[in-house]
């Protein structure tokens, strides 16, 4: 179900690895559980982020939730379009709904992330 070319964090974020760069976003499961996303507090470019730590706040009509960084490093780009149209994340969480690009400080962390198959299994368990 989840795209083949991505790696997944148990806090429902994904990372698309390209050399030292990781484009990140939230998964389909996350956007569906959140419901209508109405606001995203984007992180600032040049911020250093740690894996497993909060990188941004996301608001839906239901509640506020934290977005957890799947890898450590420096934010080098954010998806400014989400500031005006956060609903893009609901519509297209894996492509147009990307949140930020992180320049990884430790590419070994990738090994700790889940493959699509394992993430799907994990979600299935969690949904029970």
């Amino acid at each position: 179900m989840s795209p083949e070319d991505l790696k997944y964090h148990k806090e429902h974020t994904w990372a698309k690895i390209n050399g030292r760069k990781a484009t990140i976003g939230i998964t389909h499961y996350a956007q569906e559980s959140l419901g209508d996303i109405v606001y995203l507090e984007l992180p600032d470019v040049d911020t250093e982020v740690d894996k497993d730590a909060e990188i941004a706040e996301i608001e839906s009509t239901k509640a506020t939730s934290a977005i957890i960084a799947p890898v450590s490093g420096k934010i080098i780009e954010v998806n400014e379009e989400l500031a005006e149209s956060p609903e893009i994340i609901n519509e297209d969480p894996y492509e147009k709904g990307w949140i930020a690009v992180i320049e990884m400080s430790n590419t070994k962390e990738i090994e700790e992330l889940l493959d699509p198959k394992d993430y799907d299994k994990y979600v299935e368990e969690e949904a029970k």
Partner: protein
Amino acid sequence: MKRTLLYNRHKALSARFVVFAGYEMPLQYTGVIDEHHAVRKSAGIFDVSHLSRIEINGKDTISLINKLITTDLEKLKQGYSQYTFLCNENGGIIDDLLVYKKPDDSIFLCGNAINRGKVAAWLKKHAVSLSADKAGYNVVIKDITDATCQIAIQGPEAQKILQSHASTKLSEIKKFAFAEINFDDIILLVSRTGYTGEDGFELYITASMAESVWDRLLSGGAAPNLKPAGLGARDTLRLEMGYLLYGHDIDQKTTPLEAGLERFILFEKSDFIGKEALITQRQNGLKRILIGFEMIDKGIPRQGYRILAKETEIGAVTSGNMSPTLKKGIGLGYVDIGYNKTGNEIIIDIREKALLARVVSLPFYRKK
């Protein structure tokens, strides 16, 4: 966990559920914003069976209830309902509800789900304690919540949709009026009331007919313009209107005066519980009052967030969300008197960020 009589219908519509006041209720079907706009533009159908429904009969009904509510039942026409408060001796709100005066002077109360037991107990207690007669007032108090289902159909198309099933002429039911109608040969009580700011009706249905009425509404010819809507949209719709939600914006520690709803207190009426406390509070002046505010900075206020003026804490948010119609963060909250003037700029502490907001007059949303 309680479920309403329509639970299986929600399940069939793939609703996402939320626990509210002990009920497993539909939060949303297709999405909160989608359902919200449907109600503003065409019509939505809500299962609101969780609301409390209490009937009071007997010759002393009007005198008893009039001693407990802040509005005046003597002035309410038969066949009409009004918004009112039940207050305790301190003027604190026990429940905010709609009181219906039936043609035979019996009374029907529709209030908040969480207050159901409390209200019934309060009525029973005072049916004895307030009466001059040792036997108590001649009233029969009957909780009919579980024996009935309540459906709200709200939006500019609501009348047309409901009319396609009813032989009674619905345009003759004025705002806040209610009547028995013939709905596809089922006799229902219908009121022109709601919690969305749109025109619309609430239907009170015998348990055995609940699913049938729901199904007929959603399968009739006008059905394409009618969307099932959940508690999520109900909350954003009521918030845009500045309607209060018990347990959030009001509770036993707040009075109708502090909530800015003095127009629902009939001070000239003879005694009612809470009257003295409310008079005293009005004479001494309020310390805090409910305001509506909209965000100037980007951000969404939520219950519990602090409200500040410069660095000074002046209050707290009691409800907040993003307004799907205005497309900005809006909220309700209490502030110290002096900071409540329309146009006044305040700070909302959103996760340790001081974000600017402005006090606005309610409702947030006015229909064109």
